[in-house]
C-alpha cells in the first residue's frame, strides 16, 4: 500500500504539464537518437547535462528516462527497414525484422516492435516499482563464475544465427572474437594486437563495427546489386498492420522477452544485448514455425525488442536502489544525479521521494507517449522507403560518418569503417552471417574477463566455475541447449525409420 501511495504521489509529479512536456521532449529525442546509427542514449544524455543545469532535477530526469526508453524504440526502426541497427540492442531485431520488411511486412514488424517495447517497458517498470529492492540483491549474488556461465549460455544462442553453413557461421564468430581481443587487456595492462597504433589501445569501438558491417556493408551491397533495377520492395504490400495471427504469435514472445530482459538488465554486468540474444534463441526453439526463422518470423522481432526494453528498465534497478551503474548510459545518469548533488540509493528514496517516484511514474507515462508517438510513425517510417534509394543510402553513409567521426574524430575509425564496410559487403556476397560477428565481439571479451576474474580470485582453481548453484545450473542449461536438439533429431529419425511412416513433426 505504501508503494502504491508513493506511486500515486509520483504520478502527481509526473503529470504536471511542465514534466509531461519534458517527458515528450525526451521521448522524441530518444526516438531520433535511436534511429541515428552511432549516436546512443549515453552520449545524448552526457551532452544534454550542461544544457539541463537550469531545469529542475525532476524534469531533467523525466526527460533522460524518455531518452533511455525512446532510443530503444527508435533503434528497431532502421534495423527493420534498412537492416542497419542503430543500437547494439537492436542487432537481433534486424535478423527477422528486415526479412519481414523485404516481403512487404515492414509495418507489422515495426508495430510488433513498438507494442512489444511498450508491453516490456510497462512490465519492466511494474517490476521496478514493486520488486526493485529484491531484484537489486541479485547484484551481490552474481559472482564472476556466474557471469561466465551466463556468457557461455548466451554463446549457445549463436547456434541459431549460423545461417546456411556452419563453417561460415563459425568463421564469422571467430572474426568477431578476434576483433574483441584488440586493445589493452584490463587485467594485466598488456597490449594485444594493436599493431603499434595508439588509437587501437582501447579496442575497436563497438559502434564502428556495428555501423560499418551493417550500414556500410548494406550500402555497398545494394549499390552493386540493385542500382539498375527498380525498387523491388513495396513496403506497403501485405497490409499496413498486424494481422490477427501476428497478434497471436507476438504476445507470448513479448512476455517471455520481458521476463528474460528485466533481471539480466538489473545485473551489473548484464546490459541490453545479452537478453536479446537469449530471447531470439528461445523464440526460435519454441516457435511453431521454426522454418520461418531466417525468412521473417514475427516472433524473432517481438521477443528481442521486448527483451531490450525490459532490460532498460532493469538497468534502473541497481542504479536507483544501490547507486550502481551497470552500463554506459547508467553511468551517465549517475553522473547526472551527482551533478544535482544527489546520490542514488536507498537514502534517496527517503530524502527525495518526489523526484524518484516522479521519475518512476514518468516511465509509465513515457512508455505510453512512445507508443502513441511510434504507432502513427510506423506508417510514416514505412513510407520513407519510398524516397528514392540513392538518397536513402547517401543519407545512411552521411549519418554513419557523423556517428563514426563524432566518436573521437579519429582517422583510424574512418579507415576501420571503410575496411569493415568492405568486409560486411563481402559477407553479404558470400553469405556469411553478420550476427555471429557481433555476438563474438560482445560476448568474447566479457566471457574472457569474467573467467579470468573467477580464476584470479580462486587462485587458479578451475572448480569454481561450477562452484555456485547459479553457475552450475546455467552451464547445465547451456549443455542441454547444445546437446538436446541433435539428440531429439536423432531419435526422431530413428522413430521415422522404424515406423516408416512420416511423424507429424512441426
Amino acid at each position, binding site marked *: 500500500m505504501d508503494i502504491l501511495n508513493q506511486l500515486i504521489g509520483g504520478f502527481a509529479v509526473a503529470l504536471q504539464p511542465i514534466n509531461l512536456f519534458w517527458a515528450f521532449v525526451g521521448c522524441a529525442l530518444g526516438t531520433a537518437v535511436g534511429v541515428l546509427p552511432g549516436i546512443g542514449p549515453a552520449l545524448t544524455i552526457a*551532452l544534454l547535462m*550542461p*544544457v539541463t543545469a537550469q531545469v529542475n532535477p525532476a524534469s531533467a530526469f523525466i526527460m533522460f528516462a524518455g531518452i533511455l526508453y525512446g532510443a530503444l524504440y527508435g533503434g528497431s526502426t532502421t534495423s527493420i527497414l534498412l537492416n542497419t541497427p542503430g543500437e547494439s540492442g537492436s542487432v537481433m531485431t534486424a535478423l527477422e525484422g528486415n526479412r519481414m520488411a*523485404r516481403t512487404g511486412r515492414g509495418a507489422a514488424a515495426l508495430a510488433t516492435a513498438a507494442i512489444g517495447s511498450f508491453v516490456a517497458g510497462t512490465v519492466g517498470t511494474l517490476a521496478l516499482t514493486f520488486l526493485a529492492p529484491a531484484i537489486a540483491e541479485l547484484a551481490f549474488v552474481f559472482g564472476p563464475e556466474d557471469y561466465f556461465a551466463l556468457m557461455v549460455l548466451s554463446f549457445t544462442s549463436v547456434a541459431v544465427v549460423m545461417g546456411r553453413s556452419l*563453417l561460415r557461421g*563459425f*568463421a564469422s564468430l*571467430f572474426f568477431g*572474437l*578476434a576483433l574483441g*581481443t584488440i586493445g589493452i*587487456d584490463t*587485467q*594485466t595492462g*598488456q597490449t*594485444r*594486437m594493436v599493431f603499434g597504433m595508439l588509437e587501437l589501445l582501447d579496442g575497436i569501438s563497438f559502434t564502428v563495427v556495428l555501423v560499418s558491417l551493417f550500414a556500410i556493408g548494406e*550500402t*555497398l551491397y545494394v*549499390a*552493386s*546489386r*540493385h*542500382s*539498375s*533495377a527498380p525498387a*523491388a520492395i513495396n513496403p506497403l504490400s501485405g497490409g499496413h498492420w498486424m494481422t490477427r495471427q501476428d497478434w497471436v504469435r507476438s504476445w507470448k514472445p513479448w512476455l517471455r522477452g520481458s521476463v528474460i530482459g528485466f533481471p539480466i538488465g538489473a545485473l551489473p554486468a548484464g546490459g541490453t544485448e545479452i537478453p536479446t540474444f537469449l530471447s531470439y534463441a528461445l523464440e526460435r526453439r519454441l516457435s511453431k514455425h521454426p522454418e520461418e526463422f531466417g525468412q521473417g518470423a514475427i516472433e524473432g522481432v517481438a521477443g528481442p525488442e521486448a527483451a531490450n526494453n525490459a532490460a532498460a528498465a532493469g538497468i534502473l534497478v541497481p542504479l536507483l536502489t544501490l547507486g550502481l551503474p551497470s552500463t554506459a548510459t547508467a553511468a551517465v545518469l549517475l553522473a547526472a544525479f551527482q551533478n544535482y548533488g544527489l546520490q542514488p540509493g536507498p537514502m534517496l528514496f527517503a530524502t527525495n521521494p518526489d523526484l524518484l517516484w516522479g521519475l518512476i511514474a514518468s516511465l509509465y507515462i513515457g512508455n505510453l507517449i512512445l507508443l502513441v508517438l511510434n504507432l502513427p510513425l510506423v506508417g510514416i517510417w514505412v513510407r520513407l522507403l519510398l524516397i*528514392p*534509394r*540513392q*538518397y536513402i*543510402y*547517401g*543519407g545512411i*553513409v*552521411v*549519418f554513419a*560518418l*557523423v556517428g563514426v*567521426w*563524432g566518436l573521437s*574524430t579519429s*582517422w583510424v575509425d*574512418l*579507415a576501420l*569503417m*571503410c575496411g569493415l564496410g*568492405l*568486409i560486411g*559487403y*563481402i559477407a553479404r*556476397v*558470400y*553469405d556469411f552471417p553478420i550476427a555471429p560477428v557481433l555476438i563474438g565481439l560482445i560476448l*568474447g571479451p566479457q566471457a*574472457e574477463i569474467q573467467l*579470468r576474474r573467477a*580464476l*584470479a580470485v580462486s587462485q*587458479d582453481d578451475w572448480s569454481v566455475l561450477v562452484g555456485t548453484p547459479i553457475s552450475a545450473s546455467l552451464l547445465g542449461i547451456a549443455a542441454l541447449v547444445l546437446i538436446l536438439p541433435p539428440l531429439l533429431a536423432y531419435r526422431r529419425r530413428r522413430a521415422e525409420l522404424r515406423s516408416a511412416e512420416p511423424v507429424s513433426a512441426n
Partner: protein
Amino acid sequence: MSGAEQARRPEPRRRPWWLGLALAVMGALWLNGARGIASTTNYIGLGPAAIVLAVGLGLTILGVLLMLQALRGEFGTVDDEAEAPPSRRAFLFALAGVAVPLLTMQSLGFPVTAMLAFALVTHGFGSRRTILDLAIGFVLGSAAWFGFSGLGISLGGFLPLIG
C-alpha cells in the same frame, strides 16, 4: 587486401578460395601476435595471450577448411536476392564515397566530406543530378556539424583549409 581481389573479379561466385586464405592469414597474424604478449599473470593459468592464441588457432583452421571447401567447389552460395547482375561501376562509386573521408576529412572538414561522400554514393546508385546531390550532401553535413557544435562536440573545423 581482399578488396583488391574483389575488384579484380567481377564474377567471383565460383571458387572464392581467397576468402579462406584471408581468414588463415588473419589467424596467422593473431598466432604471431600471441607470441609477443608477455604472460604476466600471477594467479591465473590463463594469461592475456591465451585467448589470442585460441582465436588465432580457430581462424587458421577455419580458413584452411574454407579454402578446401572452395577449391572443391562446394562453397555453394546462392545469391537469391540479386535483382540485377552485380555492377562493378556502381560498387566502386559507392566504395569511393565511403573511402573519400579518409582523404578529405582532416583537410577539408566535415561538411565538404559529407557532401563528397553523399554525391559519390548517389552517383553509384545511378543519380545523375550531381549538382543537386552535392547541395543536399553539403546541407546534411552542415546541419550535422552545427547540431553537434551546438551540443558542445566538435566535428573538427567547418572548412579547415578555406577559412
